[in-house]
């Protein structure tokens, strides 16, 4: 998606308004999701995480504002823009919008030009800042790669991969060969540093810990590489 196209959630119980807004905004290139009631609005909110919400405040007996609280729960730093849709006069709508801290308002019946102007104005600020401050529970990831175990001895295995290891660390290996020899109970510890084989390809010695004599017997059955 180009950075100019936003993900928009429209919440309004009037199907005609929903269709009208959806068509208009999709034609301009945005990704639009709709909800006719607050319960489906909440479900869509946490499936889609939109940049912008167009919210009919009159929905469900003037209860549209409660949705602002739902947005706050997933958006503690107020990055999602909220445009209020109401049938109030412009003046009253502005006051209410300011009272609830929304980012703008649209008065029904919605005018094409006013809608597009509002979108143009709010567009640039509908961008979430880069996430550079994630908590450890969110920032930690495991990166899985595919390599090859090329050889095995009584004390280690050699892993050929695109990773050059620098630190001694425990590692989990998923390998059919290791499974076949029933060595997957062992602990595998990287013995750095990896050696360069060719640009982008490295061999890493991985120490095997916790083998018993039976395991060693199985390993010794494998033919040794000459030279």
């Amino acid at each position, binding site marked *: 998606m180009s950075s100019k196209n936003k993900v928009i959630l429209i919440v309004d119980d009037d199907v005609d308004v929903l269709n009208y807004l959806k068509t208009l905004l999709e034609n301009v290139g945005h990704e639009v999701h709709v909800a006719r009631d607050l319960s489906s609005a909440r479900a869509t909110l946490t499936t889609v995480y939109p940049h912008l919400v167009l919210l009919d405040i009159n929905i469900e007996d003037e209860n549209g504002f409660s949705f602002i609280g739902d947005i706050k729960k997933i958006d503690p730093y107020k990055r999602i823009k909220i445009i209020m849709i109401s049938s109030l006069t412009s003046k009253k709508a502005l006051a209410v919008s300011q009272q609830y801290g929304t980012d703008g308002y649209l008065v029904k019946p919605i005018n094409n030009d006013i809608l597009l102007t509002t979108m143009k104005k709010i567009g640039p600020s509908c961008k979430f800042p880069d996430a550079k401050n994630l908590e450890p529970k969110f920032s930690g990831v495991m990166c899985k790669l595919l390599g090859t175990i090329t050889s095995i001895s009584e004390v280690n295995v050699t892993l050929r991969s695109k990773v*050059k290891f620098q630190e001694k660390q425990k590692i989990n290996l998923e390998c059919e060969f290791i499974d076949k020899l029933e060595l997957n109970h062992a602990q595998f510890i990287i013995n750095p540093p990896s050696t360069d084989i060719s640009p982008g390809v490295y061999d890493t010695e991985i120490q095997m810990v916790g083998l*018993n004599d039976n395991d060693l017997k199985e390993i010794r059955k494998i033919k040794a590489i000459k030279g």
Partner: protein
Amino acid sequence: MTTNTILTIDDDKDINSLISVMLKKHGMNVVTCSDIKDFFQKVVEVKPNLCLVDLNLGDYEGFGFGIISSIRKKIGNDMIIIVMSRRSSRADINRALEAGANDYIQKPLDENILVSKLNVFLNTKSSDTKFPQRAVPSDTGECYFEVPMNITSLNENQIFLYSSSYIAKGSLVSLHSEFFKGYKFGVQSVTLDRELGGYILEIHINNNDHQHILPEIRRLMLLSSPIED
């Protein structure tokens, strides 16, 4: 060149002599003892680089496991402990490793294996014990492995990850966490992180393959606290 000191505890004096002879041949200093009290005294006196601990000391069958935890309690996690035992069941080995042992070696001791393990743990590259490498058939040698990383920056177009290991540009990776359920990416670029000594990997999110993860990415972006200026 510093000589490594190995402290062994075994209630069998013959084993102690055998180990002493074996390891002195390879340039290591060996101190032996046969009871626990003596062992703890010697740990303080001698400051060994590594301890070889018999799992079946005296009359206490399985007391060995207790020794590992008490050694860890008394001298912390930096000491390298290799346990020795005639027992060879996976359950026993795992118990030892879980109790805090770094490795396990079966009795009767194989000199080559013992020395090789010591060399690895003591970080001494020695060519006097070389185990023959055996070829792994290519059809079963494929191996998946995981490297831990941290997201340093994230937006709807790119993910930047910090890795202590170097990963070559062009590598195909899949990311796993509560948010990333195995989505596949290619590594676009790798740059050295001079401050932390590791590497920053750049991954591009492309619209065709990754459309479905964009909501998760936005979810994370909303949770990231603002940077203090």
